């Protein structure tokens, strides 16, 4: 269960406080619910994900997480360039408190990402596709109650994408998911409920198809 209570957010820019990105967002995300988050570019989808993931704090309002929430996945960050893939994986295991079963988890990550000997090379030598393989494999290695995904399935070549898709589907079936994607099919495939971010506020829809209708209506109105 995640409670977002009257959250306001704005960033500081070079010329003073910026505009309000979120203005009074209220959301209750029940356990084991797959939610698709939609809205036009710059409306604050990624900001809301960062707030829910605990990477940033609201300017006003509170966010309560009553479950284990993942980091925002598919995020550009999350990998330290001078460490190897294996060392990055060890680091992630450590900060998530999996010191004791680390060899198993690292074996799982290594097996899933299929990087071969590049797994022991520094991450800064990786291509974009290799990075996203590693990021995706790391995000699947832990059991979270809610996964936060920022365009995460768009990773790697076709073979890997299919495999990632299947693995992600399996995760989404037994855990909660909050997902941002501009691909309508992806959202409909993974999510039941939908949230539309529009003009700084969030609107909840029990059915993702209704959310898409409202999204398109808001685009047409603008």
């Amino acid at each position, binding site marked *: 269960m995640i409670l977002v209570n009257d959250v306001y957010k704005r960033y*500081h820019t070079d010329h003073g406080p910026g505009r309000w990105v979120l203005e009074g967002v209220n959301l209750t995300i029940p356990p084991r619910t797959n939610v698709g988050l939609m809205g036009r570019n710059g409306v604050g989808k990624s900001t809301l994900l960062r707030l829910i*993931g605990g*990477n940033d704090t609201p300017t006003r309002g509170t966010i309560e997480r009553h479950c284990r929430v993942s980091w*925002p996945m598919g*995020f550009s960050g999350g*990998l*330290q360039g001078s460490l190897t893939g294996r060392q990055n994986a060890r*680091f992630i295991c450590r900060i998530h408190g999996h010191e004791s079963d680390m060899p198993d988890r690292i074996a799982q990550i290594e097996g899933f990402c299929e990087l071969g000997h590049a797994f022991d090379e520094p991450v800064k030598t990786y291509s974009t596709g290799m990075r996203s393989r590693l990021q995706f494999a790391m995000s699947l290695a832990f059991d979270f109650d809610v996964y936060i995904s920022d365009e995460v399935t768009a990773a790697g070549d076709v073979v890997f994408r299919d495999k990632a898709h299947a693995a992600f589907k399996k995760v989404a079936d037994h855990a909660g998911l909050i997902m941002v994607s501009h691909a309508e099919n992806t959202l409909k495939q993974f999510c039941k409920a939908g949230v539309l971010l529009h003009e700084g506020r969030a609107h909840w829809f029990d059915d993702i198809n209704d959310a898409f209708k409202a999204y398109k209506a808001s685009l047409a109105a603008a």
Partner: protein
Amino acid sequence: MHAFQGVDAGMFIMTGLLGFFMTRNTALRSMEAIKANAALFAYRQVKPVDTVIVRAGLEGFLGLLIALILLAGAGLFGLEIVPRDPLQVLLAFAGLWAAGLGLALIMSVASQLVPEIGDVMRLAFTPLYLFSGIMFPIQFVPHPYREWLFYNPILHGVEVLRGGYFSHYHVVPEADLSFLLAFALVTVFLGLVLHVRFARKIIAQ
């Protein structure tokens, strides 16, 4: 080589350099730690202060390793390398490291908020190199200028370091390890306060 108070000139300079670089490298490298590890703030478990402290620990370890290698090398050339009072030497190194950590904690926050502060900090270490008594014995500096130089905490650490290292070395009476340790304590405290205050703002960038 000239000898001064029975101390070989090479050993005199080497001990000074090792002490000075302990502070300088810890301060400057750890100051950059936040920027270098920005990618890891994607995980909410990682705070900016973690990166600075870990980097400072690494620099301290490397500094000691380099000191051991250089001194062992000097020993191969037949120089007297066994310190008179090893505990005092270690304490002086620890004080110099802690002063570097304190400066790094403060400057890592300050240089994130105002990037130019980082450049000023890097420049400031060049005159400090001259004023820390590394290349010349501080005894040669007349009063009252010597007292002025002793506002520099690194000089205290370097002098006490040499006093603990060489048997016949006379430490000038102004040198006081507690000045360096007090400096370290104050800067570490200030730095931690700044991190508590600005951690969110740094991550939000």
